[in-house]
């Protein structure tokens, strides 16, 4: 089986999208201490909105901004109306997870209601293709890689260096201590959640022109994002980026070499392998064992 270099471009493009989703998970996990399974829902909603808007004649750039904004709003609203009210009652972490899962289904059904129950596809941000070493590569693909990569790096820098990033880390380690230190915990959490939603919205808006998005693609987006997070680990803000790209290469690689019929088995095997060999993910702060 010949593997062409163009396949690597594809893997990178898909991987960047996974990475954005994983990074959204990461932001929620670090500040609000939740695995936010709804991020795939944000991405799906953003993609559906983008596709609907461009289909209705809105300029792709405007649609892009609006769709990414929708992601941010959904992220912030999740923190305000779901995570915070439950967490403030001191209930189990999995109650939050279940509530978020319910939210994912509500988002999906609402999207089906608003945008219709059929797959729709958006106009690309930029039309046109460029000839690269014997292959035609669409600008949209290159743009996806560039925008996604820049977003991941900017967020990484923000968490690593910026003031609010430092506050975020402080809250993630110990919210009570954060409060004592005079950190505006609520505001920082809200900002982190909105940025997480924004990243998911970005992932959705970038894929909207690639494939048919339908209201039920939220769950699968949530799952791949989470796998990317597990593979990368939570060690640094760049771990999700690497996890996402690795996952995509793994998917494409096994599909190319062994055929796509066994993809689900390979995913399970890969995750089991990571759990057995490096349970903390490839890049971690500390071993998360009991």
């Amino acid at each position, binding site marked *: 089986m010949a593997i062409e270099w163009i396949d690597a471009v594809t893997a990178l493009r898909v991987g960047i999208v996974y990475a954005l989703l994983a990074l959204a998970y990461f932001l929620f996990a670090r500040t609000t201490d939740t*695995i936010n399974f709804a991020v795939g829902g944000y991405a799906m909603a953003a993609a559906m909105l983008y596709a609907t808007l461009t289909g209705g004649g809105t300029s792709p750039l405007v649609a892009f901004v609006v769709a990414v904004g929708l992601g941010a709003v959904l992220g912030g609203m999740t923190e305000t*109306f*779901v995570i915070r*009210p*439950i967490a403030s*009652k001191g*209930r*189990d*972490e*999995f*109650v939050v*997870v*279940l*509530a978020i*899962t*319910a*939210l994912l*289904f*509500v988002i999906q*059904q*609402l999207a089906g*209601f608003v945008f219709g129950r059929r797959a729709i596809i958006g106009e690309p941000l930029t039309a046109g293709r460029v000839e690269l070493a014997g292959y035609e590569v669409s600008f949209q693909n290159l743009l996806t890689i560039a925008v996604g990569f820049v977003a991941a790096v900017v967020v990484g820098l923000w968490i690593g260096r910026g003031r609010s990033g430092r506050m975020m880390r402080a809250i993630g380690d110990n919210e009570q201590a954060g409060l004592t230190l005079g950190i505006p915990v609520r505001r920082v959490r809200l900002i982190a959640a909105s940025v997480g939603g924004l990243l998911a919205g970005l992932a959705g808006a970038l894929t909207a022109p690639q494939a048919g998005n339908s209201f039920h693609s939220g769950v699968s987006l949530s*799952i791949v994002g*989470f*796998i990317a997070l*597990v593979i990368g680990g939570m060690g640094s803000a760049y771990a999700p980026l690497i996890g996402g790209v690795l996952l995509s290469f793994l998917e494409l690689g096994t599909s190319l070499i062994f055929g796509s*019929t*066994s993809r*689900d*088995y390979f*995913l*399970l095997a890969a*995750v*089991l392998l990571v*759990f*057995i060999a490096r*349970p903390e993910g490839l890049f971690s702060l500390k071993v*998360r*064992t*009991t």
Partner: protein
Amino acid sequence: MTITVTPARTDRMEVPPRSRGRRDTTLLPAVFFLVAFVALYFGWALAESYHLDIAMTFTMFSLLALGMYTPLFLGGQIDLAYNAYLAAGAYAVAIIANRTDIPLVLAIPIGAAVAATMALVLGLVTSHLTGFHLALVTLLAGTAAYRWISSTGAGLTGGASGIGGIPRLDLLGIEFGREQLVAAGLIAVWLVAFALSRFRRSLPGLAVRLNRASTPAAEVSGIPTTSIRLVSLAMGAAIGSLGGVFVALMNQFILADSYAPEIVFLALFLPLLGGISTPWGAVIGAGLLCFLNEASAFIEGPGPLVFGGASLAILILLPGGLIGVVALGWSAARSRMRKEDKL
């Protein structure tokens, strides 16, 4: 702080009066549900042929939800492979009936054993990890199992065309037709819920619940935390497989499509809808789901939306679920009655 130490009291303490011991609170709901089930069966299920199917759907979702209740709500373990456990029960029935000479009734233990083994393996792999890792690996395992029964393993499982021709179960001279199966299903639900409500308050149940609150506390209490975690996962899986057994016996036909991972997300919310303070909450949740399914005949479309929205609202606003609402109302009414008594 200074303390004047008094001489030691006598070693043997008086035995406290019996009345101060623990009250058995498992009997009252059990009796209530027994009456409710009997009334449901004779007053409603037998009235129309399709009511039996709804009652069977209720049985299946009850067993699924009770299965999930065991590790999740007692032990805080998110196991999402329940579509596979359900399938284990159903395919045990279909394969044994069509491809072997084994007595059909053995499908029950065989399905349970397959489901429990799967849960054990997944539990072992994630035994040192946090709950989310179990959630992910079980979700992927459920998806892979679905893929296997629907395509790769289609030679054995019939794939999308399914396996038909499952005979009626004949046990001790009784032929289990539709009516008998529904009766047996309701009895099974009642027994499992009752047993779980007793388990919940027994020493192993308390051990599971303490472990959920604090693993160090459970450990220093001598609780074999790994064992009970695995036991609760296996128990839940076995209970879930029972739901598959009943559906397969009832419909006499099984299809891979019935065991897609989506069914897990439906069942996940059932105990919460009813209320997680008792296994009966799972049963109530399953009943509510069946009711909403029927109501959705009028809703025209957003049935899943109503269900998801209701789940979300209950999770955020009502930690106690529907049972919690009843309990709240009851205590409010009682305190008002007391006030009136005083006046």
